[in-house]
């Protein structure tokens, strides 16, 4: 396993490409271009938001095994997007205005084409007539594959900072 420094030096091209990919992805989501965002996902993707408790770091009392808020397949994500397009998904009608800040990106090769990508995400979310907007901080643990076609998101785990979610629903994608 390369150290972070060595990994950065030997993977500059991959780092640049993945950073562009994450920025592009953030823009698609902020612009509510969800069908185009879906095309960035590998059909075998697992997209997960585990439940988090206030507890000692990394233990079973912080991330109880198997407990999640979301654990979506590609099909389940598609259905969420289809729901949002019905015009009757009241929680997101009209859609939230969001700004996603993606940073603290660190990549590590896993195999010939796949990289483990850690990053930090801060989402500003203001719904319809909200006077109070929400800040939703999270870390992302992603797997990104780079091949001839470009980047694809193979896996995503969202580690929300909060244990009790303050934004009224997780009706947007992270």
């Amino acid at each position, binding site marked *: 396993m390369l150290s972070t420094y060595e990994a950065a030096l030997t993977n500059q091209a991959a780092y640049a490409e993945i950073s562009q990919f994450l920025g592009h992805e953030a823009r698609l989501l902020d612009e509510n271009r969800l069908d185009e965002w879906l095309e960035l996902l590998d059909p075998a993707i697992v997209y997960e*938001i585990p*439940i988090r*408790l*206030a*507890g*000692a770091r990394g233990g079973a*009392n912080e991330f*109880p095994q*198997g*407990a*999640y*808020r*979301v*654990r*979506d397949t590609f099909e*389940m994500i598609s*259905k*969420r997007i*289809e*729901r949002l397009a*019905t015009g*009757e*998904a*009241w*929680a*997101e009608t009209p859609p939230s205005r969001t700004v996603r800040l993606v940073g603290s990106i660190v990549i590590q090769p896993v195999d010939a084409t796949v990289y483990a990508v850690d990053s930090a995400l801060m989402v500003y979310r203001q719904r319809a007539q909200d006077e109070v907007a929400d800040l939703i901080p999270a870390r992302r643990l992603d797997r990104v594959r780079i091949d001839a076609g470009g980047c694809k998101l193979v896996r995503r785990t969202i580690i929300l900072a909060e*244990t*009790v*979610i*303050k*934004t*009224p*629903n*997780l*009706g947007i994608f992270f």
Partner: protein
Amino acid sequence: MDQIETSAVSPSSPALERLLDRTKTCLEDGLIPVEIFGDQDLFELEMTNIFARQWVFLGFESEIPDSGDFVLRSIGKDSVIVSRDRERNIHVLANFCRHRGAQLCSTDRGNALNFRCPYHGWVYKNNGEWRGAPDKSASYPNLDTDEWGLLRAPHVDTMFGLIFACLDPTAPPLLEALGPAAWMMKALMDLHPGGMSVMGPPDRYRVRGNWKTASENFAGDAYHIGVAHRSVEKINLGQGFDLVNQFTINYALGEGHSFTGSATGDLLGEVGEYWGYDPEIRRNFNFSSLDAMQQELIRRHPPAVGNIFPNLSFVRFTNTPPEGEWPVVYTSWRQWQPISATETEVLSWQLKWNFMTEEQASKSYATGQYGFSSAGIFEQDDTVLWEGAPQVAKSTWARKEGATFNMQLGMPKLGGAQQPDPTWEGPGTRYMPGPGEAPARDFYARWLQELNSGG
């Protein structure tokens, strides 16, 4: 002085008294003043006269299976430790040190036979007893240790794996206090000797609605399904929503508890009976402890949603399966914890039957979370629609008009669509199939009765 007889208090101001009087009059006509969804003084009265006085839900036995296990929960706004002691008894302890009020426990769950205060080192056993302090023999030789243990709920009891507590020492036992709600719980939870247990800790999230709106929705609001949740049907993950109004049966059990069954057994035959559980799961059930009415109920009109006063609800529902497959059934218990007059914390648990295989359990969890959770495709739309009432409660215009909300659906004055079923021999009232708001009216009647129980 009413403090001797009961721990309920009287309204804190003439304005609050007037609001309660007005509410009483309105309720007789199936109406409710808008202020009750946002008045902070009323909220405080709810904390004292309901949450600090009634039996309230805290969590599941299966969350604290071993001696020393604890979870951190709330009674009203008060942080409490729910612990299991060496003898496997459950205690509910106020989460503050009696010395200077430091918070004793700041993790959501764990295992500890003692709690030691990080300020001056007072130590308590996990049953609340004062145990020690640094240099105890020099510092506290004459401390009356019985006096200085943690505040402890005088009543703690369980039913079908659910843990309840009550802060009123004069309260009746749990079974008596639950009344007809216990009948409903049995029909839901007592279908196998192994019972049900939680699949993980609760999902927790804050919504900008009043806790009562959530309770009354789950008490028996079938009328919203076809509109609020239309998006789910449009994407083919729900079906028959347009028929719900014709086939929903409200059971107003009495004392403010109620549930809703859909006549799915009558409508769909075998697949609609017993909530749609597939035969692999169904053949494990043992209905011998249920009475004849409960057995018929769960076969023909399985209870889909319900509310136990004040703020404990359940939903047992299914996905819409692919052609030729049986549905996946999930059971979610949820609690609408009051944070303020305008904010509520949802705690949502998914439960499995203990006889289920890994695969059956994880499918049930996945389906339940997809529908009812912080990201639930049903739940999202419910909670956002609940945000309106607290805003109206503060509206200058609405208050100027003495505005009310309308719960008259099914009442005679609106055409009397919701009629009691004269053949029902079970607890409370079973209504004929059709839309109606009797459960909501019953909920508010019980609520008002408890609020007015002070001097």
